[in-house]
């Protein structure tokens, strides 16, 4: 718990630290006059009616924005409103469409994936909601600390205008600007000369996605096994604590359950499995000799430590889940990288098509002018079959073509310019992203190592205590 709070503090301070005053105060998109702190501080279950007037349950998240007074560092709450996950999605889709050259920060997963045995896959589970809350906060901080995205008006309104925000977004008509998936796919296969850097980046993002998925899958399995090891020790705790007391009920069943195959839920003994001293009298009416009492006492105190050991795994794995979330963020970032690459391919393909089109028109024009037919065309065939066109007709056609060619050349020029701008801006953001990724992943990996050390220290503590109890028997 403590570690998580600290991690959240780190994230926040990173965001605040990275945020600087807009470098160009002359730009109109200057909504933040002071440093801001953003937090997603609460999550609440709500019920309401959805678009088809059906009852539904969803979770709403409270977003609080504070502005930090420059002089004394105090922060004042300036805005606070509730948003649900679908609104975050809308915001992100908007940013994706309007800033195709930016690697847009990802949202936390919609549904729990890479779950290990004990972790719930239920979206309403409090632990999942909590981790999602942190993920959403992280998303907002990422956007707020991005030099370009932070200036977006819709983002500003997301944080400040509760009612009507959805309508405002939709009114921008951004959905119309979105490229169709099919078009993008088509471009990917047909583009002839994409920028090599983007091709490499696409391969990189594929590899990143594949290796992180694999890692998360295996990590989940490791967590499962570790959970088993720790929890079974809790059974020692039960047996030791009730050393001198008989078992209630069927001992054989308990034994079978404990040894049941690994795919079956392992049996954890509880106090209920044994006769409680109060139910059958201290020492169950038997006069235990000193030798038994000595052993019983020693084991009982050791049993307590076994319980501590067994329950320590819950916190340990909770912290590890936080680490998994950090990796997941970059798993989803890989998709954002690919989106930028796709946009480049689309633009490049568009450019190539435009150039091709222009070239063929020029050729047509030339052929008409010189009268030679080098390429087959239906028009040419029909005129051969059904008679030549008049010189006037030909002149008209040439004129039209010349106009089109001139337009085409303009368009090609501007497309070229656009393409080069895109590549330049995209690459700048990709460089920024790379640095961020290297920094974040390194920190995550190292804090994972620190986590392991702290887990080992706890282990040494518990077993040293247990050893002392055993040796006193």
């Amino acid at each position, binding site marked *: 718990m403590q570690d998580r709070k600290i991690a959240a503090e780190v994230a926040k301070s990173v965001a605040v630290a990275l945020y600087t005053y807009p470098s160009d105060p002359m730009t109109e998109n200057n909504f933040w006059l002071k440093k801001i702190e953003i937090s997603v501080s609460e999550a609440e279950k709500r019920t309401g009616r959805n678009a088809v007037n059906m009852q539904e349950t969803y979770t709403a998240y409270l977003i609080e924005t504070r502005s930090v007074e420059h002089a004394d560092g105090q922060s004042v709450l300036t805005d606070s409103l509730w948003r649900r996950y679908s609104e975050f999605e809308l915001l992100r889709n908007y940013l994706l469409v309007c800033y195709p050259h930016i690697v847009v920060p990802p949202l936390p997963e919609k549904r729990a994936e890479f779950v290990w045995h004990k972790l719930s896959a239920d979206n309403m589970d409090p632990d999942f909601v909590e981790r999602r809350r942190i993920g959403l906060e992280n998303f907002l901080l990422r956007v707020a600390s991005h030099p370009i995205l932070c200036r977006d008006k819709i983002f500003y309104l997301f944080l400040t205008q509760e009612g009507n925000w959805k309508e405002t977004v939709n009114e921008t008509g951004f959905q119309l600007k979105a490229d169709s998936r099919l078009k993008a796919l088509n471009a990917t296969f047909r583009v002839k000369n994409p920028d090599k850097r983007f091709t490499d980046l696409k391969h*990189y993002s594929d590899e990143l996605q594949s290796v992180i998925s694999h890692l998360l899958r295996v990590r989940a399995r490791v967590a499962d096994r570790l959970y088993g090891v720790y929890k079974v020790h809790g059974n020692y705790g039960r047996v030791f604590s009730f050393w001198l007391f*008989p078992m209630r009920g069927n001992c054989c069943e308990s034994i079978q359950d404990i*040894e049941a195959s*690994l795919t079956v839920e392992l049996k954890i003994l509880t106090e209920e499995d044994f006769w409680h001293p109060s139910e059958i009298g201290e020492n169950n009416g038997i006069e235990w000799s000193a030798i038994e009492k000595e052993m019983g006492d020693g084991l009982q105190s050791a049993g307590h430590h076994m319980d501590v050991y067994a329950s320590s795994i819950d916190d340990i794995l909770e912290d590890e889940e936080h680490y998994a979330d950090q990796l997941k963020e970059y798993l989803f970032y890989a998709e954002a990288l690919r989106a930028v690459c796709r946009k480049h391919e689309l633009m490049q393909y568009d450019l190539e098509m435009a150039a091709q089109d222009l070239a063929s028109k020029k050729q047509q024009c030339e052929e008409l002018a010189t009268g030679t037919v080098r390429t087959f065309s239906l028009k040419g065939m029909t005129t051969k079959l059904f008679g030549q066109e008049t010189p006037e007709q030909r002149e008209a056609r040439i004129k039209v073509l010349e106009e089109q060619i001139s337009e085409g050349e303009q368009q090609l020029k501007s497309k070229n310019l656009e393409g080069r701008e895109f590549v330049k801006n995209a690459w700048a953001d990709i460089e920024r992203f790379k640095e961020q990724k290297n920094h974040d992943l390194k920190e995550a990996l190292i804090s994972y190592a620190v986590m392991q*050390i702290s887990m080992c220290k706890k282990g040494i503590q518990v077993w040293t205590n247990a050893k002392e109890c*055993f040796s006193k*028997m």
Partner: protein
Amino acid sequence: MEQELTDTDTGNANLIDSNDKENTNDASLMDINSFSPMMPTSPLSMINQIKFEDESDLKDLFITVDEPESHVTTIETFITYRVVTKTSRGEFDSSEFEVRRRYQDFLWLKGKLEEAHPTLIIPPLPEKFIVKGMVERFNDDFIETRRKALHKFLNRIADHPTLTFNEDFKIFLTAQAWELSSHKKQGPGLLSRMGQTVRAVASSFRGVKNRPEEFMEMNNFIEIFSQKINLIDKISQRIYKEEREYFEEMKEYGPIHVLWSVSEEDLVDTLKGIANCIDKCCTATEKQMSGLSEALLPVVHEYVLYSEMLMLTEEIGKLEDKVECANNALKADWERWRQNMQNDIKSAFTDMAEENIHYYEQVIGGISYCFTLKRLYSLLFSSCPVLMESV
């Protein structure tokens, strides 16, 4: 030559000196601080060796069971184990014996001991078969587990004040194969015939009303102990299984980080570091598991077998003064057994705790090696001063 005795109580030291007839300056004399019961060099030097454990007895009989070997005949396939005995006792013709025995022979020995000493607690033998999960009779784990248990069996007998002098035991340890076969064929001896009578009498006295108090207590204890030790046995085996699975998953976990490092120039060191830490963890886990299977599991399982046996033996307790001497013998042996049990359980769990401590120390060592702490802390502090206070 006077030897330096460092840790023993002086009582024993005097005893040794008086027995020390031919104490030599032999360079091969064991250094007293590196005592090992398996490697005495000369019969008399053994007298100078003292166990630094609780026992103040002088141990003069050392037995090992090792080297399982498979024998294939036209009728059957079976395993024999090498039994090596080293002793300084006069009644043995030599100081060293090496024989080969199979499980059947151990069964025979146990039967003879039960016959001869029906009121004593005879150590248990490992199970004949383990039906669950056995694919073939002779897989390596099974053989190794059995070997360890047979070793324990013979040593228990050797340590027992009465059983250690049993004649059949001596023959078991020393006779060549053909000698043993012919001895087996002989009828039961005088002593064992008496034992049979005692047993017969004992079993005819069931359900006697006035049970002596000590046997009530013994009865209660055995019932509860049996439940508990069975649970502990299963719990321990389950832990071993879970650890094995954990080990298997970790073996896959490490290399993924190395794979990742191929596409990340700037993270190569960190990723490879993590991979190394995971490998270190695997090694430590293996060591800890082997510790479990050496110390804890066999001890606990032996007591499971003991408790099964004792649930039956306590029938004897239902006798009254009909076989008074039998009662007393059992009582004494019961005391001895209980003391041993407590010591054994205590050291088994103490060892287990020690193994776990060692495991965690190894892992911390591995991580510290791969990521020098300075680097760790500097990286964390550089981004957030808040952390400095918490660490």
